[in-house]
């Protein structure tokens, strides 16, 4: 009896030790995350001013602001959304609502999985050879947006698929039993309820796209272009590329400006994430089933 109690105790003790170690390891991960963000905020916040956000860079990037890069990134986000959203949603609707479980469908699903694993730099190469060279768009907003759009597709498709699958099956059965066609069912009884999930996934994937550098290196990004773009065939500056350039290729760059650029980029990406979280919370409250 005594021996058994002792054994129990040592097992309990071992459990405690193990959990403390797991907790410490988790802490080891959490601390750098918080530190990284605080570090950028602390060093960058001082340089952010109205002028920094609304003026083009001057004096070899060492002074002035980052206005053209902000505008460029926003254009790229909009362009990416215009291409990837319709295509992504339609593919997902097809996959969930129409596709039969055959070899073709399985191939599509496998392709989506593989698209999501392709390195961003390979997307950059592909975008360059297809859009910039082959289709003669030149380095332009159009080429960059298309490249980013293809990159975002897998995330949007996966999110849309999950959203569609979470709509109860009964909705479809009732609609069909009332004589609605397949398309009417999808349009009026499934899509409206899947929209929150779709929006959440889309905004998240766009925030990813906004922070990407590798795919835009050769397809759109300009080193220095103080004016704003006039058409979709213009080059633009973009925040992530700007940060890359000023932190690696401009000698004696004041660190303050690099930090501030990083801070604006992080803030933009977090803002988009926040929007998606709020959307999710808002719609979850309204959900009635």
């Amino acid at each position: 009896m005594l021996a058994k109690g002792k054994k129990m105790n040592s097992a309990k003790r071992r459990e405690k030790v193990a959990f403390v170690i797991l907790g410490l390891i988790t802490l080891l991960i959490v601390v750098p995350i918080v530190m990284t963000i605080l570090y950028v905020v602390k060093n960058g916040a001082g340089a952010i001013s109205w002028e920094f956000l609304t003026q083009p860079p001057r004096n070899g990037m060492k002074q002035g602001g980052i206005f053209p890069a902000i505008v460029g990134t926003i254009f790229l986000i909009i362009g990416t959304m215009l291409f990837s959203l319709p295509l992504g949603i339609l593919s997902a609707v097809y996959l969930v609502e129409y596709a039969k479980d055959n070899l073709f469908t399985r191939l599509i699903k496998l392709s989506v999985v593989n698209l999501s694993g392709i390195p961003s730099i390979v997307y950059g190469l592909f975008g360059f050879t297809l859009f910039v060279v082959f289709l003669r768009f030149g380095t332009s907003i159009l080429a960059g947006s298309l490249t980013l759009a293809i990159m975002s597709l897998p995330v949007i498709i996966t999110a849309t698929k999950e959203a569609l699958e979470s709509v109860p099956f009964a909705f479809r059965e009732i609609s069909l039993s009332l004589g609605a066609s397949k398309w009417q069912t999808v349009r009026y009884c499934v899509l409206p309820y899947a929209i929150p999930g779709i929006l959440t996934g889309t905004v998240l994937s766009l925030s990813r796209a906004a922070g990407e550098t590798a795919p835009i290196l050769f397809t759109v990004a300009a080193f220095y272009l103080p004016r704003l773009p006039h058409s979709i065939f213009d080059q633009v500056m973009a925040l992530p590329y700007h940060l890359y350039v000023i932190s690696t290729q401009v000698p004696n760059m004041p660190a303050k400006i690099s930090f501030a650029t990083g801070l604006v980029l992080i803030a933009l990406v977090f803002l988009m994430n926040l929007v998606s979280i709020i959307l999710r919370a808002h719609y979850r409250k309204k959900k009635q089933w």
Partner: protein
Amino acid sequence: MILFVVSIFLFLLKDALSLFGVYSVRDFLFGKNWLPISDPPKFGMVPLLLGSLYVTFGAIIICVPLGVCSAMFIAEVAPSYLKHVLKSLVEILAAIPSVVLGFIGIVWLGPFLRNWLHLNTGMCGLTGSLLLAFMALPTVISISEDALIGVPKAYKEAAFGLGATRWQALWRIILPSASSGIIAAVMLGIGRVIGETMVVLMVTGNSPVMPTSLLQPLRTLTATIAGEMGETVGGSEHYFALFAVGLILFVITFIINFIADLCLRKARK
């Protein structure tokens, strides 16, 4: 979708094949020198591939134990409020753009490692590995956590019924049952690390030599494409060589993702 995958492959293949018209495949695959602007140029991708493997290996060694342990903590140990906080922190980490982490590598981590380990330069494989490990954590944590949560409750209850502590149940029952999901997490982590470009371009020192240790400057496949593409003339051998490197990357990630997908499918059964 199939069209996209196939066309990405074909466009890379088309330009890569143009290289092999003038440069032998064997020299490309097994050559030990990457000297694209010397005369005659040499496009041996071994140093770049090794660079990628070194950095990836370093990152995975650091990232997997940390990631799996914290996934265990989040999934089974943490109380529910802490779980939410930790999960959102991991999401925040996933949202930080890679170029920002690369920048931090340049201004802080690189110099810090140089002083601490007395290196010639802080821009080396280790800096890259550390940052990449950090970047791959969200992937590893969230997928391992899903795998751990996906283990049927009955397993755990049966273990408790037999008098196991929570730790014994977690370590001996839940973790082994989730193993194929965790392998998938590791594979996807590797895929993420090997394909990451900006961080390695910015912090690993950009020297395409045969790497011998992680404390030296080296260069990866991805960084080579990103770094040299801007300097090449369209249609030159060098240009096509970079597409050949892209093709290699595509094939590597394709295989890794395929394995990960198989593991995930097995885990779901």
